[in-house]
């Protein structure tokens, strides 16, 4: 028995096909995407985010323990918003001020591949959570005009929030971002 030939031992001589030349084979069909392409989705996200323009809103906060009320004036103007399909990333300049004081003024960027989930909520809900985290669970905020937040949550409790005055638009942008996250291979990595 020779090691080179042993693999050629005929186990089924009577039934084997005899082959000769190569066969021409067409490529498989390309499945249509279930939703819009990533490029179209990112373009939609970028346009809707950018067209929010300058936002001004007041937050009225009532302390349910001592009955005091507080008023804060917020203004924000996100700019240079880019949703890049090539890198599956979102970047923008964030400028947020409270009563004229700069809360944030800098460039932000994150990868949609790192986004675990997206939520839309009334801005009050997020502010109430923030107050509680600061030790003020009895403070009740109210936004005027009403604002809505789209929050992209990443691992390590890292969030990126986007204010919208229009709830329907907030939901549409969140839906587009969910689609983009899926196309980019993001989403919750935990199967359970």
């Amino acid at each position: 028995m020779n090691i080179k030939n042993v693999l050629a031992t005929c186990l089924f001589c009577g039934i084997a096909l005899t082959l000769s030349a190569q066969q021409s084979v067409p490529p498989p069909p390309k499945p249509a995407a279930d939703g819009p392409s990533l490029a179209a989705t990112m373009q939609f996200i970028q346009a809707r985010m950018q067209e929010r323009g300058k936002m001004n809103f007041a937050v009225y906060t009532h302390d349910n323990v001592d009955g005091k009320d507080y008023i804060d004036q917020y203004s924000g103007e996100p700019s240079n918003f880019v949703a890049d399909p090539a890198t599956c990333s979102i970047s923008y300049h964030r400028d947020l001020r409270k009563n004229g004081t700069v809360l944030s003024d800098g460039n932000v960027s994150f990868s949609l591949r790192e986004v675990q989930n997206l939520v839309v909520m009334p801005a009050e809900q997020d502010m109430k959570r923030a107050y509680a985290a600061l030790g003020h669970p009895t403070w009740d905020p109210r936004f005027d005009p009403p604002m809505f937040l789209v929050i992209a949550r990443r691992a390590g409790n890292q969030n990126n929030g986007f204010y919208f005055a229009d709830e329907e638009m907030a939901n549409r942008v969140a839906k587009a971002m969910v689609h983009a996250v899926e196309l980019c291979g993001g989403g919750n990595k935990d199967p359970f």
Partner: protein
Amino acid sequence: MLHQVNTARTGLSGINKRSIPQGQVAVHPDKSLTVTASNGRNFNLRPNGTLASFSAHGQNATFRADGRLASVHTSTMDIAHGTHGQRTVISERPDHSRLVSTGAHSGYMQHSVSYHGRTVIQRTYVSGGRSFSHVYSGYRYHGRYFDNYLPFYYYDPMFYGWAYYPWGAPIGYRWGWGGSPWFAFYAGFFSPWEEYPSGAYWLTDYFLGQTLAGGYQMENQAGSGQPGYGYAGDDAVPAGSDEAYAPAETPITPEIKQMIAEEVQQQLAYENAAASKPDQAPELDGLPQVLTPNHLFVVDQSLNVTTADGQQCALSVGNVIKLVAAPPETATTADLVVVSSRKADCPAGVIVTVPLESLQEMQNNFRAQLDSGLQTLHAQQGQGGLPGAPQSAIAPPPRPVDMPPADNENVQSLLDAQQVQADQAETGVTQSAFADAKPQ
């Protein structure tokens, strides 16, 4: 003359230090020697005095220049040693089934099975403490018989298409190989991509990762019962050697992986074609389809081969070789150039001759890993970093291929027995060679 050779051999080591028994000496033009000793023993010595081969009574053994055993052939068994300590043992059993050990605790038993009106080849593998079956269909090509891997599932054409075409965006994917010993072992030789633009690229790293993990397992259970013949890690090859050794590894570069990814994509087209015409599968997805110039093969188990200039060298798991030209119709071997190899393997750039059966085995491993990778893609799309597939691609359920039930023979115990017999054969051939030689 022989006295002179034996005196020179005292300066060598291992089996090369032992005296060649007295006998008739023939000197060949290249200054190699053949010694015909008593009891029908034949010794072939290289010009530098090292033992190249020994034969007697139907047994034949070949040795590397450093004295390590390269192969043993007996009436019941073939044994081949790789350069990294791997040992492949092949024997034919009385019932015509074939037993193949690829390591101390891995291998397979193969036999033909008649099932639902057709004859297929079933292999029961043992690896990493688990047992699984692969099934093959037979076909005839270049006057020889080959076993062509049968996938577990056929999918809807749209699913093959989803894996074939670029995804909506490149995805980042974490394989979780960081803590695996095999991954550390092959560091510098293989590294996965950070992003995957399509299923074909993802399947490429899946295929290479699975193949190398298997190779690592084979090398790490290479307790072959050959004390003194383990790979010494020596850079030096004795002068006058008829062997080719790579002095350093030539890694699987991104460019090589790119070419493999293109072949994965092409294979997906073949698999799709075979899924729609299972009766013509070997014709559509088998070896004949890929015997085209420049096609790459990834070695699936250690293999001793000959270079174009007649030197011996070894290919090990994960080496990448490229077909030089389509073999002519009567050929039973093909010439391939080594494009990626590890230290001590065949050096990159040399042309080696490989039996078509070995290329079929490489193609079978390639397709088996693609089959496994496609199952993973189908089950995990939309999770763990993989993009979601369109409903049109995943809604039609995979069609299981009709296969015979798993063999319930205890293959592990058969492989264990074969290992013992191989140890005995190797010891026996050395003993019979030097039965009357004086110890040095």
